[in-house]
């Protein structure tokens, strides 16, 4: 059985306006999945359903063998953390240290374990020097790293990044991607919601949502080869492949150039 098993999942606020329709998705432990789709395609709703912030209209979500329902949501949230798009929307503590402690307090970790985890994970994301600072004085990238450290401190198995890099500048974005790669190497399961195809290329598997439906899924090579589907879903290919497509349409794409543009797009 997969670590996360989603079957026939649907969600709507109003009966006639479904936001997610019959989603089936299996996530293996240690996998990195990129979830792509235009604004309003249902990506964030899917994330909120997986962490139990919303209740499905129908269908099931099973995490590590336990079916998600209002009674089990608390247990499941120990296993899955989420980092949101706007770093300002996720702070509760007066200091970085308080903020990191908050999740662990909810899980009733012992005082010594909390202190150990704070020290260990603050160091891991390079935020030890800021433990006694107010979160509001940090840069966007630092805030996202604190959010990650808080989740790691709860010893979760899965982190969902909901457009977590989209408000960051290019340098902070690259740094955050480096951290995410490190976490993946250490065996964490990553679900990354993004508009950015360059970021999605780091994932093992890509999933495209469109108008609430699971439109396509596959390896990055398979997905990139289907440029028509990409355009239909309101997404953009990497620029090198957009150029390749333009040349192909006018019959000017040589095999040498095509190979080069593909290779440069897929290089990690």
């Amino acid at each position, binding site marked *: 059985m997969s670590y996360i098993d989603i079957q026939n999942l649907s969600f709507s606020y109003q009966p006639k306006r479904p936001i997610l329709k019959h989603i089936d998705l299996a996530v293996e432990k240690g996998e990195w999945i990129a979830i792509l789709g*235009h*604004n309003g395609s249902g990506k964030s709703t899917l994330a909120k359903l997986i962490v139990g912030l919303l209740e499905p209209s129908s269908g099931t979500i099973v995490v590590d063998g336990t079916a998600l329902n209002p009674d089990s949501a608390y247990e499941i949230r120990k296993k899955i953390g989420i980092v949101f798009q706007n770093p300002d929307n996720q702070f509760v503590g007066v200091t970085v240290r308080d903020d990191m402690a908050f999740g662990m307090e909810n899980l009733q970790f012992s005082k010594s374990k909390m202190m150990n985890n704070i020290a260990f994970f603050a160091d891991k994301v390079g935020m030890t020097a800021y433990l006694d600072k107010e979160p509001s004085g940090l840069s966007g990238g630092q805030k996202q790293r604190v959010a990650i450290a808080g989740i790691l401190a709860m010893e979760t198995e899965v982190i969902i990044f909901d457009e977590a890099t989209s408000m960051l500048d290019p*340098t902070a974005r690259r740094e955050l991607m480096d951290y995410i790669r490190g976490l993946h190497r250490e065996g964490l399961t990553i679900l990354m919601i993004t*508009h950015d195809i360059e970021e999605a290329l780091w994932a093992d598997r890509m999933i495209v949502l469109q108008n609430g439906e699971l439109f396509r899924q596959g390896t990055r090579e398979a997905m990139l080869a289907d440029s028509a589907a990409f355009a239909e879903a309101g997404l953009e290919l990497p*620029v090198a492949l957009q150029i390749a497509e333009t040349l192909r349409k006018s019959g000017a794409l040589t095999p040498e*150039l095509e190979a080069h543009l593909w290779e*440069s797009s897929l290089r990690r």
Partner: protein
Amino acid sequence: MGIQFTKVNYRYPGWGRETYGAIADVTLSISAKDEFIALVGHTGSGKSTLAQHMNALMFPTSGTVEIFGIPVTAKRNKKTDYNSLRKRVGLVFQFPEYQLFEETVEKDIMFGPRNFRITEEDAREMAKNALKMVGLSENYLRRNPFNLSGGEKKRVSIAGILAMNPDVLVLDEPTSGLDPRGKHTLMELFRSIREETGKTIIFITHDMDLVYRYADRVLVLEAGSLVFDGTPDKLFRDPDLERWHLDYPATLSVLDNVKKSLGWDLDIYQNTVGKAADELKRAVRRP
């Protein structure tokens, strides 16, 4: 006339000169007509601080910002109507949800004009026109702004500023959080507003692809100083680009890579996918 910065410094109270968001000795002239300017620089370089000096939302610590002939300095002049400057230079913040608060889109867009003592009837007409300018149908007037998508909220918040018919439009990261299609739709919208009305448009961004494709002029801030003021074409040829923590646009990187890896003779300075493809086509045909 337009906006003239002369030796403008701004320090956040209690902080030193080198800190986050401060600006240092900026001298800069922005025309009231027909400019399309990108304001770039890494986080904390002072972009938003500079933008808020353009309509007297912030006052310099020293130096002068002259906005349509009216000087704005550290010392506030009781006789100056600073609010009238905010009508001529409209500022759209990064997070539209912070700017929307009424129960219908119409009321939200009317808020600005009403604030400037325009009659309800006229404000309603202005709201309708502004909504049209941002490409939304009249059906949106009755909708609740909180039920709109991110892209729609941005458009409504921009309409709210356009309704006041400012001469200059300043947008703080208008495309952040939008999907690729939404980004280009919004940038094309600014381009058409500029072409149809001649308004000067200034946008803050981290996205060098947008800078290269849309802007006529780029301002680069680094630690609060204006380190570059010129065309995108000139900026991306500048050897200091990386020192300013700026990326190369993707079309340029791809062509540069082909040039170096395959040894092709290319002019890599192409600002759209179409032009980059044309340049490669030319190179393929060349014997």
